[in-house]
């Protein structure tokens, strides 16, 4: 065990038993999985992505590149962020068959083929190898973690919040900013990804206000928690900054193991995101036991977990020396402190009982096990010394965490004193404070937090309360930039993606100069840690290779999300049946009770067909329904059609802007078919509109386009003709509308209403308001099927009653309900265009409706619709298609080819758009769009269906298969 007997912010009274790779260990409440593993001497935690090199923990925070685990169904969970709990079961990743013996470690010997850009170079040829050989190979060998393939049952939620000040990060800057704002009465949200607030204070051996830093943090946190104007969000990572002061945050909820996505609208945001310690790039810098000096200190101070027995400290910062002292205080033997600087403050060496080498570097490491490192040191005089140790603590400098600062496109600027990038010009609602801006000591960071908050409060019109900056015991701080120790051994820049210093240099030699290109070519910084440990070091190597300054080499862009967010967390409860609303027709329950099979039509559930006892195939039901309409009577729920009431003195004028045909002269009590174009001249939608009163039209749209047409109407009214005195409202959900169709439909209708529905009183295309079953309703004499037919509308709540009444009234005629399949059969037989023909690529001319385009008025799409090539007979236009032999099947999507010609795009004459079996014609028929249709009329073509591997001979005919003269409509 490597647990110190005392100390740490762990609860030794609460032990947690957990499993890692099948073995059981014990840790404490307050541990992370990483610290608990370290306390149990587990130093090998993963294998690397490309070379399968053994890896240990490198950090103690969310930037961890190596310690990735599979926990439950979740891959790629950072061990450093997992709050230990009793029963936790984690597996290591990227190893086979086991962590200790990995068959793919041989990849390390194949280094040359895995060099920079190996994806681009190695797996190129032959192309046929891609699907069968390369892709499965790459997928098995590479890839971080595995998805379970199971349905994600986790609890996800979404939450929305507003505040005056959102503080991101609860370290010294964040706590002071939050405290200043909270005491001044502002509404504050303080979010931190850690489960314990305090940030760097939790692992620093300094005093604030005469008490240990972690106790001060706890004290301030307690005060904030007691205030009603403060919301504390531990375990919450702010992952994105969006326009207008909107922040996305991911809260881990340990109670449910779920996540909650917060959308926080803040008047102002403070990024107190701190800084990230950088490693140094040297040979073998990825061995288990090599870790950031600050991480070693964190494991000791926060978790009382000692990373090893004998540590070598390689540092170019004063802070690295503080970590060395921390290691020594924890009883770790210090093998040496190696600092590339030739002179450091003598104070640093006080109390350190270790050999000290200034002006020296670590060039390389060797390792025979996860518990032994042999470091090769190059001393100031050029001499070489081998230093044995088991832990190598590295400190190469500090990189401010600026990711969130850059989400809205702000470019970071180079800071010469800290040798890193700091936030540049920020959006008006955003500030950064503390180490995130390059401040190095705790006292300046505390001051910056308070100052920043005060300035923001003043700008927001909130009077800030004065606040004392607590004194701290931390000394001043200096550092020198050391990016890389050059050598021949593999020196890793990006450990998660196994990108080495030589990869970056090679990319540069191959002509990749821009940092964005180098990133993509080498995959540097593209793993789940988003390069938080590697970007700056990679950039330094690139700048060195290009012989330009860091500032000139530039930095890659940062985009949301800053931390990985499960897709499910974004979806929240909007999944499975709740992905979008489901709309039910007024007859839904009625239909379900009568054997209806439902089909999705956008958000709607529509009855597709009704299965009667004895029917075993859907065609039996559909043929029966369609024949019933042609020979007797049937009815169908058409409530899903978009229904829009259009009122006002200018209603007719308005409709004439929308539709290609005339409306002002339509008589009251009459309906008319209308066709709507987009402004570019192509068909947008169609439907019938009835004039029920002088200033009141009832308009219908197709089911699919209802929402879009309504939006278009608003555009036409509000943006193009705002002076028109017209109002319109969607009433789709207010009316249950049933199509009653067939030669006997009038006989049925008579029993439902007291209104005169004789042919004389209500002729074809008549529309009346009428009493139906004793309630105010409407009757439209419209026909989609081509038979004598009506659409009967009653308020939605009477829809089911109307169904029952129609069934009773039609019993003597053997009436039956029909679904969308029969509806489609009937309209194809009649040659009516619908969705598959109104496909956004057809003109009015293409649908045989060119003559409907008025020459007397302006309307949307007129000018562009009149273009000659949209009215050219060589365009594919609407035709009927009929199978040559009665049993021959063909379906929509098939392409039409001449009989004696190759099947290729050049010979393609058009396609089958809507197909059905016609029980009336007793063969398969279809509508289609065929080029130069007039000249192909009567011709036999091949309907070639490459998807279903079928070819059928079809005859090109008129689309009006049934009653071309329309006599049945008018009886």
């Amino acid at each position, binding site marked *: 065990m490597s647990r110190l007997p005392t100390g740490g912010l762990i609860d030794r009274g609460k032990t947690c038993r957990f499993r890692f790779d099948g073995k059981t260990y014990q840790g404490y409440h307050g541990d992370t999985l990483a610290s608990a593993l370290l306390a149990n001497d587990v130093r090998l935690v993963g294998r690397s992505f490309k070379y399968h090199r053994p890896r240990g923990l490198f950090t103690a925070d969310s930037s961890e590149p190596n310690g990735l685990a599979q926990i439950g169904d979740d891959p790629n969970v950072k061990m450093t962020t997992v709050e230990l709990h009793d029963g936790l079961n984690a597996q290591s990743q990227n190893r086979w068959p086991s962590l200790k013996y990995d068959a793919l470690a041989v990849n390390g010997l194949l280094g040359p083929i895995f060099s920079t850009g190996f994806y681009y170079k190695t797996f190129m040829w032959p192309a046929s190898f891609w699907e069968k050989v390369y892709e499965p190979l790459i997928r098995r060998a590479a890839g971080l973690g595995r998805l379970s393939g199971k349905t994600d049952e986790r609890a996800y939620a979404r939450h929305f919040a507003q505040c005056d000040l959102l503080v991101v990060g609860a370290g010294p800057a964040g706590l002071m900013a939050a405290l200043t704002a909270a005491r001044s009465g502002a509404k504050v949200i303080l979010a931190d990804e850690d489960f314990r607030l305090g940030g760097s204070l939790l692992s620093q051996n300094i005093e604030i206000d005469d008490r240990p830093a972690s106790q001060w943090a706890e004290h301030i946190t307690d005060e904030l928690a007691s205030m009603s104007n403060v919301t504390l969000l531990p375990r919450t990572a702010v992952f994105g900054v969006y326009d207008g002061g909107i922040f996305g945050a991911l809260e881990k909820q340990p109670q449910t193991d779920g996540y909650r996505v917060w959308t926080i609208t803040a008047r102002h945001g403070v990024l107190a995101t701190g800084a990230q310690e950088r490693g140094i790039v040297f040979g073998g810098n990825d061995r288990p036991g090599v870790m950031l000096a600050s991480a070693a200190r964190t494991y000791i101070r926060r978790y009382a977990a000692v990373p090893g027995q004998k540590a070598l400290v390689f540092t170019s910062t004063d802070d690295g020396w503080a970590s060395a002292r921390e290691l020594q205080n924890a009883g770790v033997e210090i093998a040496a402190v190696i600092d590339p600087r030739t002179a450091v403050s003598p104070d640093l060496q006080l109390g350190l009982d270790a050999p000290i080498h200034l002006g020296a570097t670590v060039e390389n490491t060797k390792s025979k096990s996860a518990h032994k490192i042999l470091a090769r040191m190059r001393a100031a005089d050029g001499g070489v010394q081998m230093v044995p140790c088991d832990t190598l603590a590295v400190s190469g400098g500090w990189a401010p965490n600026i990711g969130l600062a850059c989400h*809205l496109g702000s470019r970071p600027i180079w800071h010469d004193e800290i040798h890193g990038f700091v936030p540049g010009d920020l959006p008006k609602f955003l500030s950064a404070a503390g180490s995130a801006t390059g401040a190095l000591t705790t006292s300046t960071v505390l001051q910056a937090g308070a100052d920043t908050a005060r300035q923001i409060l003043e700008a927001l019109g909130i009077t800030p309360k004065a606040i004392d900056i607590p004194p701290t015991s931390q000394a001043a701080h200096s550092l020198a930039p050391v990016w890389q120790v050059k050598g021949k051994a593999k020196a890793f820049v990006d450990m998660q993606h196994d990108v080495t210093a030589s990869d970056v240099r090679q990319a540069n030699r191959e002509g990749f100069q821009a940092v964005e290109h180098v990133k993509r070519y080498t995959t540097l910084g593209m793993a789940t840690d988003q390069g938080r440990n590697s970007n700056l070091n990679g950039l330094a190597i690139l700048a060195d290779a290009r012989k330009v300054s860091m500032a000139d080499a530039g930095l890659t862009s940062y985009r949301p999300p800053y931390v990985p967010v499960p897709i499910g967390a974004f979806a929240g409860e909007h999944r499975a049946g709740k992905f979008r609303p489901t709309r039910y027709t007024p007859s839904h329950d009625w239909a379900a009770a009568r054997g209806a099979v439902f089909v999705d039509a956008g958000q709607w559930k529509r009855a597709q067909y009704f299965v009667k006892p004895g029917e075993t195939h859907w065609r039996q039901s559909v043929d029966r329904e369609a024949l019933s309409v042609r020979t007797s009577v049937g009815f169908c729920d058409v409530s899903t059609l978009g229904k829009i009431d259009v009122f006002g003195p200018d209603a007719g004028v308005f409709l004439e802007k929308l539709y290609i045909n005339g409306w002002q002269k339509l008589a009251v009590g009459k309906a008319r078919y209308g066709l709507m174009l987009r402004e570019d001249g192509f068909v947008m939608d169609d439907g019938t509109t009835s004039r029920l009163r002088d200033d009141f039209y009832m308009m219908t749209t197709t089911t699919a386009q209802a929402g879009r047409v309504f939006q278009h109407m608003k*555009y036409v009214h509000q943006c193009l003709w705002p002076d028109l005195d017209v109002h319109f409202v969607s009433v789709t959900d207010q009316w249950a509308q049933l199509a009653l169709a067939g030669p006997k439909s009038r006989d049925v209708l008579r029993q439902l209403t007291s209104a005169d529905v004789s042919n004389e009183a209500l002729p074809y295309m008549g529309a009346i308001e009428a009493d139906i079953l004793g309630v105010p309703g409407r009757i439209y004499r419209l026909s989609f099927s081509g038979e004598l037919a009506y659409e009967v509308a009653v308020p939605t709540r009477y829809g089911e009653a109307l169904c029952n009444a129609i069934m009773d009234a039609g019993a003597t005629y053997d009436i039956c309900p029909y679904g969308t399949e029969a509806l489609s059969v009937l309209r194809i037989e009649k040659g009516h265009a619908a969705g598959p023909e109104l496909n956004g690529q057809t003109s009015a001319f293409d649908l045989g409706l060119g003559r409907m385009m008025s020459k007397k008025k*302006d309307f949307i799409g*007129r*000018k562009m619709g009149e273009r000659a090539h949209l009215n050219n007979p060589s365009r594919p236009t609407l035709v009927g298609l009929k199978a040559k032999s009665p049993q021959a099947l063909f379906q929509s999507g098939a392409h039409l080819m001449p009989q004696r010609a190759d099947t290729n795009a050049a010979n393609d004459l058009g396609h089958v758009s809507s197909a059905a079996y016609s029980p009336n014609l007793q063969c398969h028929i279809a509508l289609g769009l065929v080029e130069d249709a007039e000249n192909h009329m009567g011709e036999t073509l091949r309907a070639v269906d490459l998807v279903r591997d079928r070819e059928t001979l079809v005859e090109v005919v008129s689309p009006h298969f049934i009653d071309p003269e329309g006599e049945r409509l008018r009886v």
Partner: protein
Amino acid sequence: MSRPELKASQDAWANYVYLRDNPMGPHEELWYHGFGCGAWLVVTRNTKTHEVLSVKAAKP
């Protein structure tokens, strides 16, 4: 917003239907309040900074 007259040339119409300016800086755009009241809005936005400079209803 400036829909051509019917008698305008095909070029003027093609320009209206298909061609859009893409300036860097302040730019007038039409936005639709789809999840709200259904109003079309004239939004003046700086395309470089995404700063919204003014918003007014398309129909006064």
